[in-house]
């Protein structure tokens, strides 16, 4: 039987932990609201952007752009987007697991894999594999469009020089506050099919006047499109991260409550045992004096 003092200290410790997890839960909830707002704000931009891209790609003869060029795939670059911080349940490890599987599959096909890591968690996880080409840390939470642009430019540069023949993104998709799933997406070469998905709705508007030519617009738009994709992935990850942390911390707080409950039982039992033993002593002593 543990001593009274031990149990009491332990209860105190667990209480402190639950205070921390509760605070983290609330912070995550507040941050989640911010991240969701950001996603909401961005959605209209992304939708309109995709519609315009659809319009454009239906008007031009595709395949003329280096960013859309399909090559024989020898090297695949994977952009892994995770959070910078842990304590958010299995969120990051799910993404990392998915990446691991993807790497194994690609390498099984005899392709070389390089990684671009966004977020500390992926960077430290893959550090020892020697595959990491570039790392972007401490962006999550405060990131802006220009962070996404730097990443997109870096990846595009690598693609254009032929260092990589295909680029994929692995990130955490935000389904709802309760559900976040890792997702994989083709990134480069940009596929007109995926782009032109919305084309049917807007092509009825008729022929556009393009200024400058479609080709030149495309040259501006394609890099922008990459920014949009990277930014979108980052937004999704940051929202998912906070949602995952929120539920993880909620679970932790509940677990703390359970532990406190059972520890209190032990404490009371030990206290009673102590009192009984003392009473026995007194009674025994009084008996002996008779």
């Amino acid at each position: 039987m543990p001593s009274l003092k031990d149990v009491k200290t332990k209860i105190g410790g667990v209480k402190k932990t639950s205070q921390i997890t509760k605070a983290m839960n609330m912070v995550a909830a507040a941050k989640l609201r911010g991240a969701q707002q950001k996603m909401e704000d961005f959605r209209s931009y992304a939708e309109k952007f995709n519609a315009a891209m659809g319009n454009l790609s239906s008007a031009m003869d595709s395949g003329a752009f280096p960013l859309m060029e399909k090559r024989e795939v020898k090297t695949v670059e994977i952009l892994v987007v995770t959070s910078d911080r842990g304590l958010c349940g299995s969120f990051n490890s799910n993404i990392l697991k998915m990446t691991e599987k993807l790497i194994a599959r690609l390498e099984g096909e005899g392709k070389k894999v390089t990684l671009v890591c966004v977020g500390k968690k992926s960077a430290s996880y893959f550090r020892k594999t020697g595959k990491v080409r570039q790392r972007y840390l401490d962006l999550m939470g405060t990131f802006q469009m220009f962070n996404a642009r730097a990443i997109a430019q870096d990846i595009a540069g690598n693609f254009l020089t032929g260092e990589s023949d295909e680029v994929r993104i692995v990130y955490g998709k935000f389904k709802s506050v309760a559900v976040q799933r890792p997702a994989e997406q083709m990134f480069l070469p940009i596929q007109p099919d995926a782009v032109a998905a919305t084309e049917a709705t807007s092509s009825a508007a008729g022929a556009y006047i393009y200024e400058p030519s479609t080709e030149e617009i495309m040259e501006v738009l394609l890099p922008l499109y990459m920014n949009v994709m990277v930014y979108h992935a980052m937004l999704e990850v940051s929202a998912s991260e906070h949602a995952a942390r929120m539920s993880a911390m909620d679970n932790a707080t509940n677990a703390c409550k359970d532990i406190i409950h059972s520890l209190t039982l032990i404490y009371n039992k030990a206290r009673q045992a102590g009192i009984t033993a003392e009473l026995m002593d007194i009674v025994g002593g009084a008996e002996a004096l008779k």
Partner: protein
Amino acid sequence: MAEKLKLEVVTPKGAVVSKEVDIVTAPGYGGEFGVLANHAPFLSTIKTGVLTYKTGAQEETLMVSGGFCEVSNNKLTFLVESAERGADIDVERAMRSKERAEKRLAEAQAQKEKFDRARAEAALQRALSRLKVAERHKPS
């Protein structure tokens, strides 16, 4: 008043403007262009500069930076990286960044650094458009 145009300015941070207007003037790829109602479908890239739109006698200006715009069916959509109203612009800050950009530009020119020069030029362009928008905002 004749027919109106529906103007929408959207940035990654959300919509900035969404209203019915008479005329829009924007910095396009080949220089400024104006759009009235019943314009033909049109798609152009947008440079950093000043966007002006008028409703009746009321004129408003916005500073916009890089993106593109689409006109169709009397709907005018601007997708730009940033858009700022005159009232939101910090004139002093814009002044400082203008000076900084000018200095950088001079340095870059001296050293013939192409990349830095492009960046400094873009920064200068942004600062100048900000100042212009802020100036036009003041009298009203």
